[in-house]
């Protein structure tokens, strides 16, 4: 049987530090569970704020509650944890050593804002440049923009965008943010960030001059710090599968085809549409919405695995049409198998009883767009009784698959992964323990469960170095 804890070599007498990589729900949970048991923890997060994917979700299934609600509690737990340090804009460069005695090289990108920042917002007011807001996951971008979104610099300091404008007429415009910004209203650490693209421009000077607290540091440079750590919890989470690769569904070609994550952004009252559920092509209400399951998942052309969450995500999102349009809202879910396990089945039953939600057992063959109305038309066969359909909808949402954020050769250490790219529990991983979606396609609940387990595995390594009698055991 594979043992989660390998033999501990050369553990010191001082309590070892646990390094958590990734500040999403899994990383935060692992860090908190360990530190609240009295451990020293360092949490590093690549983005300028913690919370990860869940900050971008409108609601959770099955309670239809708001993800930032749990995050608020977790952020408060972090503030109350003196033995937990959080480093944002930080990533693990390399890891040397053995279980119980690692040296981690952590690279910290410049924020250009130091900890004197009060988050008053004066810098954002002063800066003129605007950029597409990555927080909204590409929603409203054209396909060309989308493919360049990662390395966007051409759309620099346009002043044409009007983020507060009413988008109910005309095509959806991408949300914009200033070159000095707080990523989202609840972002923590509650500190602004300067976009590196304004460094060296007049805007950088404007930000500097506007700050009355000496919080803007334009000379900040990337730095690398070395940390001595006993164990590592790898919680780098997931990313959506590239929808454009699913050619027959026309993502990127047909504007009214979006991903499930984009729909979450659209529902955000502070998002690009102000919470309106509309069609990107013309801003008209999207009352009749189609959901395509297994968009990228369970497909040997794309992701072999089942992404687990997408069925529940679509069931949840089917309530969005009702929430916005009442009896005029309708949803159709095209599926292979509805995977609503344990008490999530209750939620499925509830949705099934809604006459405005239809279920069609069918993997949609392809989507075309009606040239006049812009309606996406879904073509395929209802396999229950072999019924052919060509169904027009206002909007199509691809229940996009989940893949590990870090894959292939990108790990800064040797680690055992399965063929879907998820980390396997293996003694060869030493004291590197994966948590959350780095281990499998998981929902939030299971991610938290996984992270709590990972926390204990790390605690075992730390305790092996400090609790008398423990180091003699090789379980």
């Amino acid at each position: 049987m594979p043992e989660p804890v390998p033999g501990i070599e050369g553990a010191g007498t001082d309590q070892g530090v646990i390094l958590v990589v990734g500040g999403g729900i899994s990383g935060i949970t692992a860090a908190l569970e360990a530190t609240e048991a009295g451990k020293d923890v360092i949490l590093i997060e690549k983005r300028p704020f913690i919370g990860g994917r869940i900050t971008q979700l409108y609601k959770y299934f099955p309670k239809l509650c708001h993800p930032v609600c749990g995050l608020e509690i977790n952020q408060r737990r972090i503030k109350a944890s003196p033995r937990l340090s959080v480093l944002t804009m930080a990533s693990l460069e390399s890891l040397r050593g053995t279980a119980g005695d690692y040296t981690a090289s952590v690279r910290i990108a410049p924020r250009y804002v130091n900890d004197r920042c009060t988050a008053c917002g004066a810098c954002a007011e002063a800066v003129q440049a605007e950029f597409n807001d990555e927080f909204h996951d590409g929603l409203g971008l054209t396909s060309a923009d989308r493919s360049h979104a990662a390395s966007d610099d051409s759309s620099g300091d346009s002043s044409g965008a009007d983020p507060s404008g009413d988008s109910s007429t005309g095509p959806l415009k991408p949300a914009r943010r200033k070159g000095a910004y707080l990523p989202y209203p609840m972002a923590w650490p509650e500190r602004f960030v300067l976009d590196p693209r304004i460094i060296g421009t007049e805007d950088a000077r404007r930000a500097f001059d506007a700050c009355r607290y000496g919080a803007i540091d334009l000379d900040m440079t990337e730095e690398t710090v070395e940390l001595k750590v006993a164990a590592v919890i790898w919680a780098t989470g997931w990313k959506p599968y590239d929808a454009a690769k699913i050619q027959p569904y026309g993502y990127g070609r047909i504007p009214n085809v979006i991903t499930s994550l984009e729909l979450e952004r659209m529902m955000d009252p502070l998002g690009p549409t102000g919470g309106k559920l509309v069609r990107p092509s013309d801003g008209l209400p999207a009352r009749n919405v189609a959901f395509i399951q297994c968009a990228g998942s369970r497909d040997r052309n794309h992701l072999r695995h089942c992404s687990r969450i997408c069925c529940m995500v679509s069931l949840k999102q089917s309530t969005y049409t009702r929430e916005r349009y009442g009896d005029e809202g309708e949803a159709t879910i095209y599926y292979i198998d509805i995977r609503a396990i344990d008490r999530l089945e209750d939620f499925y039953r509830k949705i099934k009883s809604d006459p405005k939600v239809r279920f069609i057992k069918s993997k949609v063959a392809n989507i075309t767009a009606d040239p006049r109305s812009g309606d996406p038309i879904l073509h395929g066969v209802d396999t229950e009784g072999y019924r052919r359909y060509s169904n027009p909808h206002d909007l199509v949402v691809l229940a996009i698959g989940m893949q590990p954020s870090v894959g292939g050769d990108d790990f800064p250490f040797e680690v055992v992964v399965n063929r879907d790219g998820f980390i396997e529990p293996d003694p060869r991983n030493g004291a590197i323990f994966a948590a959350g979606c780095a281990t499998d396609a998981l929902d939030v609940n299971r991610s938290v469960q996984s992270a709590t387990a990972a926390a204990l595995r790390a605690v075992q390594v730390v305790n092996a170095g400090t609790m008398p009698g423990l180091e003699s055991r090789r379980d």
Partner: protein
Amino acid sequence: MAKERKIGAYICRGCGIGQALDADRLEEVAAREGRANLVRQHDFLCAPEGVETIRADLASGEVSDVVVCACSGRAMTSTFRFDGVAVARANLREGVVWSRARKGESSALADAGSSDSSERGEIPAKTGETTGEAEVSSSERETMQEMADDHIRMACTEIRFMTPPSPSLEQTLNRTILVVGGGISGMTAALESARAGYSVTIVEKSATLGGFAARLWKRIPDRSPCEAPVDPGIATLVSEVSVHERITVETSSKISRTSGSPGKFKVTIERCDPASGDDGSTGSRTETFGAIIQATGFTPFDPSHIPELGYAASGDVVTSSELEALALAAKGEALVRPSDAKPIKSVLFVQCAGQRSSKPGHLSYCSGYCCAASIKQAMYFQDADPSIETVVLYSDMRTPGSGGEDFYRSGQSRGIVFTKGETSAISAAGEGGGARVRYRDLILDEEVERDFDLVVLATGMVANAGVDSEANDTKTDEPDTNASAPAAIEIPVESILNLTYRQGPDLPHLAHGFADSHFICFPYETRRTGIYAAGPVRRPMDIAQAREDATGSAMKAIQAIENAGRGRAAHPRSGDLSFPKVRYDGCTQCKRCTVECPFGAIDEDEKRYPLFNESRCRRCGTCMGACPVRVISFENYSIDTVGQQIKSVEIPDETENKPRILVLACENDAWPALDMAARLRRSWSVFARVIPIRCLGSVNTIWVTDALNAGYDGVMLMGCKSGENYQCHFVKGSEMAQYRMTKIDDTLEQLGLEKERVITHEVAITDIERAPRLINEMERTIARIGPSPLKF
């Protein structure tokens, strides 16, 4: 108060406070009305130099308690934390400057048009620009200044009634864990805890370790490539547990009594000799444990009462657990028909047997593991003889995740046939043995009747969660939804933990008989601090998940022990050192606190007084809110810290046309929503006075009546959603508060006040637009019904 208290008030002028407000006047209010011994202004209080000023004053002894008059208490929390020092926060930045009205004499009245949008998705566009240099009239400046003055008064009052919490003297650090149940979850929890250095005792009811998994031939694979069934690994696990120096195993034993709290659970373990009959107790002993993990597993669903499943009708219809027993006995040899021992040539697996249905007698949930379990069992046949026909009749194949889909594909490649269909009847096939199955093939859209040599019912998991404390709860006069209670066959359930708790002997159930869990964000948090459920007792799950789950629960148990040993609260107020203190001479033994505590933390002593168990307490304050005679309080949160704040607000004469609205906002959701609204420069009524509270459950009605008596024109309560999909972090706090508030109408009538003056709202953390709007609506309501007649 023995020690002389010296209050230092520090007024920050940064972030626009200095421009928008008259800091000198704030200083004067703090000194004169707030009776601060020392008041300082600072341009940038949260900077190291500002914090240093405070530290220096504390060090010199000039100041003992600190009032920070700057930003919201949610901001700069660790910056303004000084060990052992009471700190109160006056929320000038978010609460006044950023959320102030921008145009016109008063916010909502002038703003009425724009903020009057409908609930659904209609969000008014962002108004106004950021910080405060906009032109403001002098009267507007004055009302805003009054708002700020009140915040100073409130914070200075709060600090006077607050003491820095310190641990009580009843902490015990006890690094031992009791694991109830010696199945795979229990053994895993025990081993993982022991590996972290904690001592464990496993109490197992039966004579051997192993539980359900010991009765399996193979288990579902969980390591890549997940293609074939694997050995359950019980033997290895049992031997690891048996030899571990920090694990004690008590088989043929059960728990006859559990009392105490985290750090000092007193547990009576009773040894039963199975040979000497049911209750053949052969002695007991009592031991003390730091925390408890309940891993009591599940019982396979019994399908005999569902006639259409044919379980009683044919000997060749078996449940999946019975098939395991057959496979275990056959040890890899070909299985034979139970009825006549003839070879099996065809097998049908009926998925969701007695599950996923709202029909009476069925389980409504999905047990989650049965799809993979049937694939595994079909492989038993295919691997023994590929010519055996194995058919899985399913409605949805549920093999999620990375390994699940691999296993499904592997089953298909071995020749298992998967048919989407619905079974309507199973009966004995007739003379030749086997079973006849009628089903609808949903793909081919036709009725099918076929005989199989063997039918396997993929039955679900029924949790062994003991007595549902909630169901037995004496819900005397609560708002009840008893109509929906299922009228299932009452089987007397034996308690597992036999807790001596006032609120029942076991963990409360959440749904369908599974032990309590917070479910999404905090799945391990039960309503009984220090007792954690692991494995299928918590939620239906397979072995791989149960092992992960057990490891997580061990983490929580360890954490509970460490927290209890330091007097720290467990989740969600982790680290809070305060705990309820009671003035027993005033207690009327009404038992409201013991009934309402969402965590069952309060028992009753021999004299029928409430007995508070500190380490079971989550510090939500629901007991304080419940107490009609107000004898319960916390050092840093009490009837007075809030009540006196309310009274400290200056109530203008009714002729001034300046109403006062008290807003008691839950610090977990409503308050952050208001904070973020302020950050986005949404405005709310300058007449509102917002006080954050721990939970709506902590709101004592005296605060409401005191406010009304003091001349407030309206009172608003903002808390989390209650009910089935509750969002209250203390589970029942907001529900309790709403129930209490249903009775406020009588009070209003006695006072001769309109009902509209007190209102309760469910506010989510994302109600950034709505929360300010609700306050503005209240201001309009007050304008409509006029000033309170109780103003003096």
